[in-house]
C-alpha cells in the first residue's frame, strides 16, 4: 500500500448536503457522503432512487444546486468536470461510454495520465495483465466488443488514469454469470491495489461480500449506512429498501 494512503487521513471525498435536480425534478435531497482512501463502498437502492445521480454529482457531470463536494479537503463543488476527476477519480458509467470509433488500444491510451502526485502505477502493460482478453483484442474497434469486454475496457480505461477512487456504476449489469464473476474478481484486485471504489450493482450478495461499508439510498436520501456484517444482521432493512 503506498505510504501516502496510511499517512493521509483527509477523506478522498467529503460531500455535504447535496441537492441535485434534473430540470425541475428534485433527485437528491441532501446527500452526505464521505469516502476514505482505499475504502470499498457500495451504493444500494432501487431504480430511480438517485444512485447514478449521486455519482454524477460528485464529479460535476450533474452539478448539485446546493451542497459542497470536497476532494482531498479541497472544495471542488463548482469546478469543471475534468479538474475534479484529475484529483484522482475515475468514472465507469452505466452505459460504459466506450468510444466506438477508437480501437481498444486507443480507448486505453487516450485516457493515460499520471495520477495525483504523479503516480504511474497502471501503465498499459499492467492494465493488460489484468485483462488478458483485451490484450488479445487491442486492434478491435470499441463497437466490436461484447458487453463483458466493453465493461473490462471501461474499467481498464479508468485504471489508465491512475485513480485513487473509481466510481463503478452498474458494474455487472447485463452480463452473463461467468463474465460477472470475472468482473467481480477484477474489482477485488482493484481493492487489493488500494484503490477506493464506490460500486453500484444489483448483485447485493456479492456487494456485501466485497464492500467495507454499505450505503442505502431511498428517494434521494441516505437511509442506511453500515458495514456488511451489520447489514446482513438486519435482513428486514434490505427487504424494505431493496426488496431482497
Amino acid at each position: 500500500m503506498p505510504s501516502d494512503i496510511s499517512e493521509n487521513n483527509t477523506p478522498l471525498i467529503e460531500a455535504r448536503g447535496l441537492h441535485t435536480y434534473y430540470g425541475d425534478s428534485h433527485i437528491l435531497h441532501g446527500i452526505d457522503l464521505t469516502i476514505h482512501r482505499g475504502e470499498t463502498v457500495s451504493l444500494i437502492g432501487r431504480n430511480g432512487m438517485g444512485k447514478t445521480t449521486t455519482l454524477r454529482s460528485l464529479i460535476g457531470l450533474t452539478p448539485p444546486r446546493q451542497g459542497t463536494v470536497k476532494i482531498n479537503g479541497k472544495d471542488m463543488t463548482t469546478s469543471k468536470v475534468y479538474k475534479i476527476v484529475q484529483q484522482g477519480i475515475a468514472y465507469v458509467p452505466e452505459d460504459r461510454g466506450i468510444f466506438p470509433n477508437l480501437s481498444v488500444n486507443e480507448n486505453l491510451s487516450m485516457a493515460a495520465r499520471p495520477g495525483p502526485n504523479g503516480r504511474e502505477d497502471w501503465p498499459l502493460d499492467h492494465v493488460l495483465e489484468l485483462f488478458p482478453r483485451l490484450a488479445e483484442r487491442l486492434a478491435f474497434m470499441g463497437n466490436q466488443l461484447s458487453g463483458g469486454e466493453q465493461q473490462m475496457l471501461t474499467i481498464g480505461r479508468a485504471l489508465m488514469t491512475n485513480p485513487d477512487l473509481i466510481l463503478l456504476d452498474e458494474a455487472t449489469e447485463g452480463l452473463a454469470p461467468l463474465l460477472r464473476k470475472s468482473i467481480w474478481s477484477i474489482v477485488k484486485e482493484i481493492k487489493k491495489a488500494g484503490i477506493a471504489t464506490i460500486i453500484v450493482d444489483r448483485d447485493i450478495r456479492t456487494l456485501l461480500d466485497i464492500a467495507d461499508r454499505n450505503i442505502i439510498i431511498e428517494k434521494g436520501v441516505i437511509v442506511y449506512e453500515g458495514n456488511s456484517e451489520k447489514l446482513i444482521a438486519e435482513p428486514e432493512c434490505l427487504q424494505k429498501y431493496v426488496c431482497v
Partner: protein
Amino acid sequence: MELSFYLIQLLNGIQFGFLLFLVASGLTLVFGIMDVINLAHGSFYMIGAYLAYWLTGIFGNLFLGILLAIPLAIAIGMAVEKLAIAYVYKKGHLHQVLLTYALILIFDEMQRFLWGNDSHSVDVPNLLSGSIPLTDIQVYPVYRLFISAVCIIIGIGMFYVIQKTKLGMRIRAGASNNEMVQALGINIERLFSIVFSLGVALAAFAGMIAVPVDSLYPGMGDNILIISLVVVVIGGIGSIKGAFVGAMIIGVSSIFGKTLLPDMASVIVYAMMAAILIWRPKGLFQAI
C-alpha cells in the same frame, strides 16, 4: 477536343478539390466534433487570402507573406472562438447559425473597409511561375502543381495527427462522446479550441495559397463556404476521409462543368449532391 485538354481540366479539378479539402476538413471537424455549425468558416478563407495579399504587398514576397499571415489568421480564429463561438457551444444550431452569420457580415464589412470593393490579385512567385509541357502545344502551370503538392503534404500531416497521436485519439473520442472525454480528465474546452483553431488555420491557409490562381474579391468567402458545405454533406459530417472524397468529386465536377457546360455549371454541383444524398442520405462516410 483533345485528350490533353481533358487532362488539364482534370488536373485543375483535382487542384481545386485539394483546396476545397483544406477548407471542408476544418468545417467538418468543427461540425462533427464540436457540433457547431460555423457559417463564418468561409470568412477565414477570405481573411487568409487578404492577409497574404496585404503582407505580400508589404514584403514583396508571397512565401514570406504567407509565413507571416498564418499566425495572424490563427490568432484571429482563436479570438473568434474565445469571444464568440465558445458562448454558443451548448445553445444549439439556431444560435450558432445566427451568430456565425453575423460574423460573416462583420468580416465582409471589415474587408470592404480595409481593402475596398475592387478585386485584387497577386502574381505567381518567380520561382514557381514556369509551366510543364503536357503535349507539344499544351502546358500546365507549376504553381498549380505546387498547390496540389502542398495540400497532399498537409493532408498526410492531418491524417497522422488525427489517426496516430494522443491528441488525435482525444479529438476522435470527443466526436463520439464528449461527456466521457471530460470524465476522463481531459479539458474539452481546450480540445475544442484546438480543433477550431486547426480548422481556421486550414481554411485560411487554403485562401493564402490560392491567391495567385484566384483573384480576391468581396464575398469570396461566401462562395467557398457554400461549396464546402456541399462537400461536407456529401462526404458525411465529421468525416475527414469524406471531406477528401467529397472535395475531389465536387472539385472535378465543378471544373468540368464550367468548361463543358458553362450555363449549367452551378447546377451540376448541387445535382451531384442530390444524387449522392438519394443514394447515401448520411453522406459517403461516417464521422471519424
